[in-house]
């Protein structure tokens, strides 16, 4: 990869050891992909996690004095104070890793969004911008719905790009690599956001790695429907980009999405396939101990939906009811009155927190319900049934799911 004089200087350590490490990683990635050069990015999103590999790299940069050059937001870890006040179960060393991770991201000057949907509020790319967004559900949203350009980044490569303000030009930053691979003919009704969850889960599993192009979608999918598709297609597969011509921004026609090429494969999705996907997720029934919503983090509209279902109701004594969201959304939800309604019913609205964190250890041997196959996939619980948000809420009131 060709480096400019300024990039060479960074690599020689003239801008500090932390920034040098970031540049070293980016140069290696450039070499791996035979990138000709680096290009400026406008923003980045680091899929921070409370894990040791993540801690090592962010501290390496922070201790070396690196600071983010462009806005760089962060993924959820967990609300340490909140959970440790609530429970004695969480191992102290886990809390220490999480605390150090969060502190190091602060030292590198990241936007401490602790949200997996930062493109909605805290760090919003524009059409055509080159960015470095890790988080497997954020990558396809940013590419497909917004029409910005990002590769499938790791937390570390995204953070490095945020620190240097550049990334190697390869992969999905190049128009020719953004062409469709699979034609997906939708004959299913796609009534609500949960149907998009099932669609994502099914399509991800069918094609694995690729860029699906959809036909047969009859109306503009909502923000929440698109978020669910992005998240769930990356539980069962690796989908960094997709097209719904007429509704997503980058290609107006199927032909344009395939850039004139023919699809590698064609798949038809009817109500039958979605029903089959749903049935696979029904792993058990009967008494439940918890409900977990907000994987990915719930939007304000989704929090409102939960509040409407719980208004004037009382959750079953034996069921813990959790809604995960961003600090920004909780602030608005509190102001609007939704948090009050959920708390009066006996539920919790928690910020900064991912389902895949040690703070949920109290539920390790418990059975729960969620609307998210991604939440179920992490296997932090004994068993998790996946169904519509309405089903989860009703089951939480009754104490069981039949």
């Amino acid at each position, binding site marked *: 990869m060709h480096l400019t004089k300024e990039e060479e200087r960074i690599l020689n350590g003239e801008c500090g050891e932390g920034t040098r490490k970031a540049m*070293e*990683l980016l140069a*290696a*990635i450039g*070499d*791996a*992909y035979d990138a000709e050069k680096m290009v400026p990015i406008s923003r980045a999103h680091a*899929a921070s*996690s409370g*894990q*040791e*590999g*993540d801690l*090592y*790299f962010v501290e390496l940069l922070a201790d070396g004095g690196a600071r983010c050059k462009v806005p760089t937001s962060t993924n959820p870890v967990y609300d340490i104070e909140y959970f440790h006040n609530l429970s004695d179960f969480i191992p102290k060393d886990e809390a220490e890793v999480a605390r150090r991770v969060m502190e190091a991201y602060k030292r590198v000057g990241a936007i401490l969004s602790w949200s997996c949907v930062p493109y909605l509020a805290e760090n919003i790319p524009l059409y055509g911008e080159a960015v470095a967004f*890790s988080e*497997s559900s954020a990558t396809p949203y940013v590419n497909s719905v917004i029409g910005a350009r990002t*590769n*499938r*980044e*790791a*937390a*570390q*490569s995204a953070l490095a790009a945020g620190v240097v303000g550049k990334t190697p030009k390869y992969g999905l930053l190049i128009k020719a690599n953004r062409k469709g691979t699979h034609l997906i003919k939708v004959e299913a009704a796609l009534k609500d956001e949960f149907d998009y969850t099932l669609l994502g889960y099914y399509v991800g599993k069918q094609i694995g790695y690729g860029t699906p192009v959809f036909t047969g979608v009859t109306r503009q999918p909502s923000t929440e429907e698109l978020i669910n598709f992005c998240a769930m297609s990356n539980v069962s597969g690796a989908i960094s980009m997709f097209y719904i011509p007429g509704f997503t921004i980058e290609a107006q026609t199927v032909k344009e999405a395939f850039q004139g090429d023919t699809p590698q494969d064609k798949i038809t999705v009817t109500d039958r396939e979605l029903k089959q996907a749903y049935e696979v997720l029904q792993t058990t029934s009967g008494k439940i101990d918890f409900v977990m919503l907000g994987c990915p983090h719930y939007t304000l509209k989704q929090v409102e939906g939960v509040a409407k279902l719980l208004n004037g109701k009382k959750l079953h004594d034996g069921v813990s009811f959790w809604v995960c969201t961003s600090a920004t959304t909780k602030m608005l939800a509190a102001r609007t009155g939704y948090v009050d309604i959920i708390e009066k019913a006996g539920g919790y609205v928690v910020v900064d927190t991912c389902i*895949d964190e040690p703070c949920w250890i109290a539920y390790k041997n418990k059975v729960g319900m969620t609307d998210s196959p991604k939440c179920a996939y992490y296997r932090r619980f004994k068993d998790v049934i996946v169904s519509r948000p309405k089903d989860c809420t009703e089951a939480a009131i009754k104490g069981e799911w039949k």
Partner: protein
Amino acid sequence: MKSSEIVLKCHKIIGGCGEGEAMVSHEPICFYLTDPKTGVVREKNHELAGKNIADKVLVFPSGKASSVVQIDGIYKLASNNHAPKALIVKDVETVLVVSAFIVKVPLVNRLEKDPFEAIETGDFVKVDADKGTVTITKQKS
């Protein structure tokens, strides 16, 4: 016992030198699905299930699984001194580059011969990524 030495050119991705016994996997590898305390692959039905990748020169087609688990997996192996000594791959992606970078293990691809034909499990392999060479000592009886 006689041995013959073959030197192949390769493409450096992460620099450094590493040598050891080769272990060949025709299936992609997820480092998270190894035991961090020993280096033994515990992924059921994997070609390397039950085998130990610690201190080996790993030859495999590509990485797999999400960035978070892959990177955490190799980092935990390295913390216990059970990381592989070098990585020889066919298809490289960002996550694998990051994985090798944070544990400082040389990573190379594009050998001048198909690594799955040139290298067998048990061969002694030396990877000098900085020089761009892979030296294979065949162990034939």
